[in-house]
């Protein structure tokens, strides 16, 4: 399991931006990802499904956790790593 690669793949799938064009410094709400409110709902759902798949006591992922200002791809990776490693 490579969490970094998997999370970038999920973000790529949800945003329509190719994996090779996603940088860890990209902010979720800004170019090129431009997740809006509805997009963040679905990104949170996809991340939740990923965490559930890799943990025993299903940790959740809330939209509010990834909606923070200037939240970057690297922050999402850290968040998911923390959730999986905690469980």
């Amino acid at each position: 399991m490579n969490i970094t690669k998997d999370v970038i793949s999920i973000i790529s799938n949800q945003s329509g931006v190719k994996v090779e064009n996603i940088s860890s410094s990209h902010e979720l709400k800004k170019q090129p990802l431009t997740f809006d409110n509805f997009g963040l709902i679905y990104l949170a759902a996809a991340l939740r499904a990923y965490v559930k798949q890799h943990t025993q006591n299903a940790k959740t992922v809330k939209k509010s956790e990834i909606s923070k200002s200037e939240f970057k791809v690297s922050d999402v990776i850290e968040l998911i790593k923390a959730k999986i490693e905690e469980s």
Partner: protein
Amino acid sequence: MKYLLIPLFLLLTVDCIAQKTVADSPENNNNNILNWMSDNGIEIRRAFDGTKKEGKSALFQYVKDFTTDSNSTNTLDIAVKVKEKEFEKLRLYFYPVVEWHRNIVNEDLQNEDSYNKISASLKSEWAILSSIFTPLLVGSASIKNDFKDDEPEGEFKIETTFFSIIEGLPGSNTNGRNNNTILKYYPYFGYEHYLGLVEGIDNIEFLKSRLYVEFYPFGTDAIRGIFEYTKRWETGGKNLNTDSEVISGAFNADLNKFFSITLEYENGELPVNDFENSHTLKLGLGFKI
């Protein structure tokens, strides 16, 4: 003229606070007040009605009104969203919003084009499925007071739209050559009920459809355009003898992280103008968290 000074004062104050806080803790930009508000789910916009107003907040606008051929420099639009309640497994969200919309033409609140409305709302969003193409329901219930005539009104709205991650479908990012987003759109279909809360004030109901298009002509966040077309069909209550139609467009250019310049055009029968026709061009200073 004094209304020109308010946003400029705010601009300087907020920038100074932000810069001072960042300077105090250069290793942590998140320590400033505005980021704290954002991180705690408090947002400031022009409105939270799913329209173009939600994208940017305008504290002040200079308005050219083509209907009356008048100029107004006395417009204020601000909406504050408090932290939302999230039922993440159901993809269901509730949040309260307080809004203030004011347009006093020629310093005269009794002018027929003037309004001064404060409202409190409970809004909701529900993403029905978690599949790659799914409907969403957006609803709101509001109580508002127009201080022009001191008549409280109620408002109930429910709209459905669609979201997909498949390029070309509603909600998806349409990307340009450099992989940046250049277009995103949502079609909406819904029902609106405007409710007079005192005797003698008419109710009015509409079915509506709306197309919302957001575009980034230069593939950058700094310059963004929004086009919107709304059509309402009166289905009950007060007989306006006409269906309401609104065409609007806006361009935003960011000055910094929180402030922007907004040029906005509106033509049609807007709810905020009690469905009277208005035709305006507005130049504003926007503030957004």
